[in-house]
């Protein structure tokens, strides 16, 4: 079959790879209808997460049609139209029972790598390096779904493919930031990043009752899209002092909840960006955490900061003093999508959650490398390139 594979640092190719097959009784095989790029793919592609091997199929946000099921798959049948959570979770370990699906004990077939890095291993993730299990990604004609009953969800008839696609990763990730960040009615919420996840976090905060939501970015087209499609306030961090602006807009208190949706390749205004890049290239830090630093410093006393952006290991100048002395609650996670996807699909069906606008660049899978170039370099107003593997 055809697939988009990682060939080396910043090298992608569309090539032929072996078809997936049922390897466990609880597996299913999905014919991929739509598969989206994600900002966290860029960390793998750029080599910041050094656990990729040449030939690895990337992609983890997807939906499609079930074409084969293992003998122990009970909830799905051939022909079902489903959206699949990017996180591979068993649904039956203690963490899954708590709704902490991305911490699943049984979904990662390479536990030693992340146990050595982080102390304990998280769940597996499709197309997300061998540290996360080495599972093939979704930028392919077909993909194997382990624990299919747990990770695939039927798409309601009234929800179109392009809308449902983003219930796979962006929407549940954003929702988790607002939910576990503790957004309550009347809160003021600031969101760093107006990509798909940031927009979904902002929308989730509004649906959870936040009185004001302020989203921060530097790309005019993303700020305009967020203002238009999500309906929240926006800030261009290259045109204003974000910390001062947030204080002014919150009566001097600072936001109640700060959600970071940027990740380890954060841009920093001014010369500090080159300094951060140099430190990262010299491996004095593995990740550039500017947006997290700013969220921590801007957050009100006793407030909450949720880190949605992906980080791999170590950061420099982390303001732990601010976390401690301001009494902040700091939380983070890969997305616990299985906890939210059915509810999000319901909201999509009711028209409460719009997502299709995120797919600014739909294209055939053959154009995958071009799609990533547009996405990475923010060309042509790209928010998400979405591939049609069957086109």
């Amino acid at each position, binding site marked *: 079959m055809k697939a988009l594979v990682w060939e080396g640092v910043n090298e992608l190719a569309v090539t032929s790879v072996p078809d997936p097959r049922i390897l466990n009784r609880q597996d299913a095989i999905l014919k991929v209808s739509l598969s989206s790029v994600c900002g966290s793919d860029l960390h793998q592609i750029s080599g910041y997460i050094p656990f990729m091997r040449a030939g690895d199929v990337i992609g983890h946000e997807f939906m499609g049609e079930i074409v084969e099921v293992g003998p122990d798959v009970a909830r799905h049948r051939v022909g079902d139209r489903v959206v699949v959570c990017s996180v591979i979770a068993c649904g*039956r370990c*203690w963490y899954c029972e708590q709704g902490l699906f991305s911490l699943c004990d049984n979904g990662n077939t390479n536990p030693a*790598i992340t146990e050595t890095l982080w102390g304990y291993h998280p769940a597996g993730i499709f197309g997300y390096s061998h540290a996360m299990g080495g599972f093939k990604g979704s930028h392919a004609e077909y993909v194997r779904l382990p624990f299919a009953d747990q990770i695939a969800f039927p798409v309601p008839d009234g929800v179109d493919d392009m809308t449902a696609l983003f219930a796979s990763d962006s929407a549940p990730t954003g929702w988790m930031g607002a939910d576990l960040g503790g957004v309550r009615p009347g809160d003021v919420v600031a969101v760093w990043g107006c990509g798909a996840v940031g927009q979904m976090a902002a929308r989730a905060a509004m649906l959870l009752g936040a009185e004001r939501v302020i989203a921060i970015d530097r790309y005019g087209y993303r700020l305009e899209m967020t203002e238009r499609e999500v309906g929240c306030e926006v800030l261009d961090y290259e045109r204003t002092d974000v910390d001062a602006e947030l204080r002014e807009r919150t009566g001097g208190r600072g936001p109640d909840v700060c959600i970071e949706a940027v990740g380890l390749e954060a841009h920093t205004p001014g010369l500090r960006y080159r300094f951060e890049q140099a430190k990262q290239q010299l491996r004095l830090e593995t990740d550039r955490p500017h947006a997290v630093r700013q969220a921590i410093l801007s957050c009100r006393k006793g407030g909450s900061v949720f880190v949605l952006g992906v980080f791999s290991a170590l950061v420099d100048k982390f303001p732990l003093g601010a976390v401690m002395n301001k009494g902040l609650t700091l939380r983070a996670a890969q997305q616990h999508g299985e906890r939210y996807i059915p509810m999000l699909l319901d909201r999509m069906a009711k028209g409460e959650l719009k997502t299709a606008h995120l797919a600014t660049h739909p294209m055939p899978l053959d154009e995958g490398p071009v799609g990533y170039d547009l996405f990475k370099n923010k060309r042509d107003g790209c928010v998400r390139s979405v591939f049609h593997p069957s086109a």
Partner: protein
Amino acid sequence: MNRTVRRVVVLAGVSAGVIAARRIATRQEGDGAAGQVPDRWHTVTVNRPHEEVAPGGRLPDPLAGLGDAVEVRLRSAPGGRGTELAARLRDGAPAGAAEAVARAAGSDPRQDLRAALRQSKQLLETGEVLSPDEPSTTRRTLRSLPLELATRRAGGEGRL
């Protein structure tokens, strides 16, 4: 340094390290049991009650397969979190340079023990042992050899 030269240097470094480790290990093996230490308990918590983890005293197949090489201990986990399933090697485990060589060669008995514990937990909680995707990659490269080795050992290594 071009890519080819860099690959040769990395390969030479890895080879020299392995040869040195083997020499040290051979010396220690000649010194008797100097390379062995008592094993500690390796433990997983299984999200199932005690009576399901070892019905009638019968251990899950992966652990039972290790036979008398291991001691096994079970106790209820606090807070209703299931059962703590612990095991350790009866005859001790390699240490020092012998450990490094055994781990690289895949012959450290703790690797089998860790894998058996993880597989037992998966079987009890989900009914099967999750298989990695096959083939793991479509193209082997020199640069990815360390990751390939780490992946091959990943089920038996780690902090468990």
